[in-house]
């Protein structure tokens, strides 16, 4: 048992369990809190995968994004608005969970069947260099300029759209 395996089991377990909790809690506040934990454990997994910069970006971006989500939950939640899942139409939902389980097993089978680990060459040294800020910056500003500018316009569209839709007094 190396450190890496221990960390993977802990972080992966946290990610899996919290994702279940997020979608099953009746209270959105609890869901939001566990979503934070889920994203934090994903950041840890990114570190394990030598994607240092992505891990940092994950923490920065989702700390902000989730904070805002949380705010909205507090702002919009009516007392007593907590729904009971599986109470309405329980049969349909149990069937949905069974279908989801079957699909999951199928994917697991498929992943082991194709065994991608044979086709990917695990060069640890290359991956350490691939995840640094330098490598990402180099790739982004040489080959990926068009997507980069497109992302700028995407964020502009989101800013305009958010203002148009949500500003209280708007003319």
């Amino acid at each position, binding site marked *: 048992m*190396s450190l*890496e395996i221990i960390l*993977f089991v802990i972080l*992966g377990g946290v*990610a*899996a369990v919290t*994702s*279940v909790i*997020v*979608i099953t809690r009746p209270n*959105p506040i609890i*869901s939001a809190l566990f*979503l934070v934990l*889920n*994203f934090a454990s994903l950041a840890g*997994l990114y570190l394990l*995968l030598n*994607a240092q910069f*992505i891990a940092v970006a*994950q923490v920065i*971006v989702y700390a902000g*994004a989730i904070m*805002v*989500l949380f705010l*909205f*939950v507090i702002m*919009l*939640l*009516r007392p007593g*608005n907590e*729904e009971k899942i599986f109470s309405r139409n329980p049969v349909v939902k149990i069937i*949905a969970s069974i279908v989801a389980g079957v699909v*999951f097993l199928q*994917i*697991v089978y498929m*992943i*082991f069947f194709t065994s991608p680990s044979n086709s*990917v*060459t*695990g060069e640890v040294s*290359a*991956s350490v260099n*691939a*995840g640094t800020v330098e*490598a*990402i910056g180099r*790739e*982004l500003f040489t080959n*990926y300029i068009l997507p980069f500018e497109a*992302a700028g316009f*995407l*964020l502009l*569209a*989101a*800013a305009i*759209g*958010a*203002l148009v*839709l*949500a500003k209280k007094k708007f003319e």
Partner: protein
Amino acid sequence: MQIPIEYYLILSAFMFIMGIVGVLTRRNAIIVFMSIELMLNSANLTFVAFASYMGNTIGQLFVFFVMAVAAAEAAIGLAIILALFRNKMTLNIDEVNILKW
């Protein structure tokens, strides 16, 4: 790398399916939205896992752009939810039904 990539893929597939189940079974618009975030993040985990096992930067760049997209969607989605809430005072997507669904 001691952990085979399969385990990362299975973890991300599990999160993806939890996201789908969340979208399909939950009725609160904000929780549906959180489930969608889960789906996007599971795709990100797949990207990073493949990228680092191949020693390749492109996948990590893609994660970057997916984060930008998730942020844009978060902003616009919350704005839509807020606009709806002003007029209707509900987050339950089953109560949102003047148009036939």
